[in-house]
């Protein structure tokens, strides 16, 4: 496939509902089951090693009308929670073995309960991911939490999930993450080599594919990017921050670029590419994953790390990518992102870094207001 074909294929995959994405994967892997993964992070390797395809649950975008979930969640709750619940209430997830949620925010936690009550046939897991990276007890706890998930999943499936299988899955996901890092690395140096919306589309589509099928696409895309002749574009070099859970409509990212911004780095779909480096199993893959979560993770708004504050993380992301401004793109009603914005904003103001906040919703279909704001922002910088 050419790069264009890969991107188009990924666009097509993102148009599918999770059930349809699973069906597509089953054409090639007839025996796999599906397992939903609500953002931000879950140990995908355990799910994959169990013979399941981890499928990112990023809501339903504009593909499903919310007719049941609105009566369960109030108007001030984020779109991703509503549309994810809607998928379960409409029996769209019935082909799945279950789903995993984690302690990212209060809404996600309650969503997990609602899904559990309303779909009793599914296995619903809730992970309490650690918020203390610095305690002497953190590693044992995190290892135990991942092991608990492994044990519960194995028990539900009535089959063992071996270290060997997890190790093999780890190799695959290491490869996915490493290739994604390379794509991002390349984009940092040559932002014109791939549209931000295309890269975003590919990375998000990867959450709906088996890693073994996704890897060749990433390899091909990377090879094409490296050889592609591009004309450098001028623009405001930006980092997009705040889209770690609910994902912005692709149209919004298009608008960011069309307004004259060059996206150098972002935190979109960050949970699926969380680690700075490959995780080395060393005979204990679960322990290695726990260690990586504690000390090898990229900063996110849903993980407290006393010794590595997010504000420093964002400044480093700016510096390392050569960005000169920040576009905050939090989902409407996203409490972690909206609260983090306050401290981020303070630090950026202190460092005299321009920034703009553009909130989004899943069903956003017109971007005119955002376009005007972004164009004004970009012009104010370009012609300053």
């Amino acid at each position, binding site marked *: 496939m050419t790069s264009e074909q890969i991107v188009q294929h990924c666009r097509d995959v993102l148009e599918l509902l999770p059930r349809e994405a699973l069906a597509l994967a089953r054409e090639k892997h007839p025996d796999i089951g599906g397992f939903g993964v609500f953002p931000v992070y879950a140990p995908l390797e355990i799910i994959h090693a169990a013979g399941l395809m981890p499928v990112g649950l990023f809501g339903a975008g504009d593909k499903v009308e919310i007719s049941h979930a609105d009566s*369960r*969640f109030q108007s001030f709750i984020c779109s991703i929670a509503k549309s994810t619940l809607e998928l379960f209430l409409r029996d769209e997830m019935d082909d799945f073995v279950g789903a995993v949620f984690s*302690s990212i925010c209060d809404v996600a*936690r*309650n969503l997990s309960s609602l899904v559990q009550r309303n779909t009793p046939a599914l296995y619903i897991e809730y992970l309490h991911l650690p918020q203390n990276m610095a305690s002497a007890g953190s590693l044992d706890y995190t290892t*135990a939490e991942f092991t*608990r998930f492994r044990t519960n999943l194995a028990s539900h499936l009535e089959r063992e999930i071996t270290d060997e299988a997890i190790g093999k899955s780890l190799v695959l996901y290491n490869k996915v993450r490493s290739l994604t890092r390379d794509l991002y690395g390349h984009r940092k140096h040559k932002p014109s080599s791939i549209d931000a919306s295309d890269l975003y589309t590919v990375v998000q589509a990867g959450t709906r594919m088996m890693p073994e099928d996704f890897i060749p696409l990433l390899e091909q895309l990377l090879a094409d990017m490296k050889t592609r002749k591009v004309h450098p574009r001028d623009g405001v070099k930006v980092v997009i921050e705040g889209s770690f859970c609910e994902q912005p409509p692709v149209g919004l990212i298009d608008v960011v670029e069309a307004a004259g911004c060059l996206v150098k780095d972002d935190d979109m779909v960050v949970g699926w590419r969380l680690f700075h480096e490959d995780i080395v199993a060393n005979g204990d893959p679960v322990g290695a994953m726990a260690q990586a979560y504690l000390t090898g993770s990229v900063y996110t708004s849903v993980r*407290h790390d006393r010794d590595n504050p997010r504000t420093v993380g964002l400044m480093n992301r700016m510096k390392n990518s050569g960005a000169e401004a920040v576009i905050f793109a939090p989902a409407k009603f996203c409490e972690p992102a909206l609260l983090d914005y306050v401290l981020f904003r303070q630090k950026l103001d202190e460092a005299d870094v321009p920034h703009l906040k553009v909130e989004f919703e899943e069903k956003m279909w017109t971007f005119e207001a955002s376009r005007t704001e972004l164009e004004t922002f970009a012009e104010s910088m370009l012609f300053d």
Partner: protein
Amino acid sequence: MRTAVADDKDYRGKVHALSRDIMTDWMTELKDATQTNIPSAYLMISGNCVEILRCFDILPVFPEINALQLAIRKNSLPYIIKSEELGYASDNCAYVKADIGYTMCGGVGEGGNIPKPSLIVCNFVGCNVYIKWFEHCADMMNVPMVMLDIPFVREDRPSKEDVNYVLTQLKELITECEKLTGKKFDIDRLREILKHSARAEQGWTRAKELCKNRPTPFDSYFDSINMMGPINALRGTKEAADFFDQTVEQYEHMVEEGMGAAADEKFRIVVEGPPPYPYYRNFRNLFEAWGAVAVQSTYSTVGGTWEFGFCHDPERPLESIAEQMIVHNLCNRSMLERYKQIKSYVEDYEADALVIHSIKSCRLFSAGQGDMREYFTKELGIPTLMVESDLEDPRYYAEAQMKNRIDAFFESLSYKRIRAGAESEKGKVG
């Protein structure tokens, strides 16, 4: 039949006055501490470990209580607006905004009413916003922060690893307290403090149990606030334990005399969700007008679900602190556990209905309460009313709309009761 009722100062006033006195003493201590170097520490209400701070004579400070007081005194809005100017969104928790706004306006530190903390102890017990709130406080005031990450209840009981993780962090907190104060940790002192805690917790449980009586001696939603301050903020002191002895005595006396919280107890309700503090009295009046009295409430158990039998054990000091933080409070338990808690309240306290007060600020409480309403009305057949406003931000309280909803609900309940009575009479005649 009209129940006997004590006059205002007797049935609400005595316990309220006792509570106000000891809470005022504590707040005076806080004010005094702004002028001294007495070590103090921020802590959150839910599943807190105030006893450890007390063991080092560290003055506990609760930003939630600060926010609550601003709201109930109708002072919260200017501080909320101040925070919104700093970048907080209209959709962010207004407790956070009021407290941060107050801090930024000089309410904390020299010249304010609350001391600048020497340490911030982030007891992350369920509410994710706690983490952000305390990160902001630590950053804005440049104060060191200790994280106590308390694993959420996600199995029937916490695992050995959950408990060990918390114990390790508690020991790390103790080390920090030793460094801060220069005092050596004294486990026997902690045991003494926990004896006071246990006595207060037993008093709480006895008081709550009395609400099974008809009429209930106090409103277990609106009047519980008088007990929530002492149990959550002053726990571990002799004063708090004595307060509960006196409170129980008072309520037992009322039960013996047949005195109730309402002039005419017509409806026994269970209330879910925090109250709208800026309109506390108005909101209460809307229920009192119908003779509706809360016999239980989930909000009163945010700090601890003492009435289900737990109390701290001086013989297992750190272990029982860890268990309380993990298991025995509302915030660290799932929505489905809350459904069970409410169901048991409705059954054990013979409630007629469930009232859900859904607040915008606190997603821990509110996200998904529509499902709760579905469950209680459709699956259990319990009449359920859901109303919306906020616990801190007065802009979200619409009095007329609230009154309409509450009136319609109780009117409908009254009608059902009359009809059921008529049916019953008809049956007898037939």
